[in-house]
C-alpha cells in the first residue's frame, strides 16, 4: 500500500510541477495568480499523501495551515496583483 501511495504522490507532484510551469509562463498576471490556487489543491493532496506514506499524522495539520494560508495568498494576489483594481475604488468594480 505504501508503495502505491508513494507512486501516486510522485505522479501528483509531477502534475503540480507541469501545471506550475504553464502558470508561471502564462502571458498575463491573471494566469500567475492561479499558482497559489494550484498549490492550494495539488500541494495539499501531495501533503496528505506524504503524511500517510511517511507515517506522520501531524502532516494533516500542515495541510490545514496551507489550506488557510493559500487562500489568504490568493486573495492578496487578486487584491494587489492588479493595481488598477485596487486603485479605482475596489468595491464597486469587484462586486458587479
Amino acid at each position: 500500500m505504501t508503495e502505491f501511495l508513494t507512486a501516486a504522490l510522485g505522479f501528483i507532484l509531477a502534475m503540480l510541477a507541469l501545471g506550475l510551469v504553464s502558470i508561471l509562463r502564462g502571458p498575463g498576471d491573471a494566469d500567475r495568480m492561479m499558482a497559489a490556487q494550484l498549490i492550494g489543491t495539488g500541494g495539499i493532496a501531495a501533503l496528505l499523501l506524504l503524511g500517510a506514506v511517511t507515517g506522520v499524522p501531524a502532516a494533516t495539520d500542515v495541510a490545514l495551515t496551507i489550506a488557510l494560508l493559500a487562500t489568504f495568498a490568493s486573495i492578496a494576489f487578486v487584491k494587489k496583483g492588479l493595481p488598477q483594481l485596487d486603485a479605482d475604488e475596489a468595491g464597486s468594480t469587484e462586486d458587479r
Partner: protein
Amino acid sequence: MTVATILEMVLAAVVLALGVWTIAARETFAATVGYVAYGLLVPLIWVRLDAVDVALTEAAIGGGLGGVLLLGAAARLRPSEPATAAETPGKIVRLSAAGASVMIAAALAAAVLLLPDPAPTLAPAAVANASATGLANPVTNVLMAFRAMDTMLEKVVLLLAIVGVWSLASDRAWGGRPGPRHQAGPHGVLVFLARLLPPVGIVVGIYILWTGANHPGGAFQGGSILAAMWLLVIMAGLTDTPAVGGRWLRLVLIAGPGVFLIVGLGGLCFGPAFLAYPLPPHAKPLILIIEVAMVSTIAVTLGLLLAGAPERSDQG
C-alpha cells in the same frame, strides 16, 4: 532506487526548479509568485525530514505571510522596474558570482554529507529532562524551557521590527493607520469569504496553539494563522487597520515579551535562575500562560508588519 528515493528526487527537483525561477524570472512580480509557490512546497520537504513543527512555520511564513509581503511590495514597485533593470552587472561580475555561488554550495553540501557518524546531538538530553515541564512535544520544550531566552528575545526582535517599520512613517501620518482603506460592497464574494473563513481560521489557529504542547504546533504557528485571518477581514473592507498610536494596541504588542519577562524575573526571585520554571505541576500552566500571551502578540505583530508603515492620519 526505491520508489521513495525517486519521490524524494522529484520533490527536490520541483522545489529547486521553483528556486531557479525565482532568481531567473524577468519580471519581479512573476519571480515573487514563484517564491510563494516555493514557500508553499518547502513544507513537504520538512515533513519528509520528519520536522513537522518547522513545516508548519515554513508554511505559515515562507508561503503565506512572507509571500504576501513580497507580493504587495512587487505590485507597488512595478513602476520603478525598468529603471533598475538597466543596472544589471556585466558578464564578468555575473560569471564570478556564479563561480563563487557554486563553490559555496559545493562546500556546504560536502560539509553536510561528511558529518561524523553518529552526528553530535543534544536530543537525548532534551528527552531526559522532558518531565521537568510536563509537555510532550520536544520542540516546544526546547523553545519554551531549555532555550527560553532565545524565544523571548525573538519576540523582542519582532517588537523592534515593528518599531522600525512604524518609524518610517511620514510626519503627516505619524501614529496613523497603515495601508489603504479597503472598501467592498456588502454582498460581494470577498466579503462572503471574509465572513465565513475567519471563524474557521480562528478555531484552527487556537487548535494549533493548544496541540503544540504535545504534538507539532505552537504559539507562532497559531499566531500566524490568526494574523492571516485578521488581514483577510481588513482586505475585504469589513474593518480598518488600527491606528498605531492606540494604547490598547501597544499593550497587546508588549504582552507576550512582557509576560515572558515577568515569569523569567519570578524565576530569578523565587527560584534558582532567570527564566527557571518551578517544579513539574506548576511549570505547564506557566508555560501555557506565556504561550497565550504570546499568540495574541504574535498575531497582532505579524498583521501590522504586513500592513507596513502608517500612511494615513488617524482621522482619514
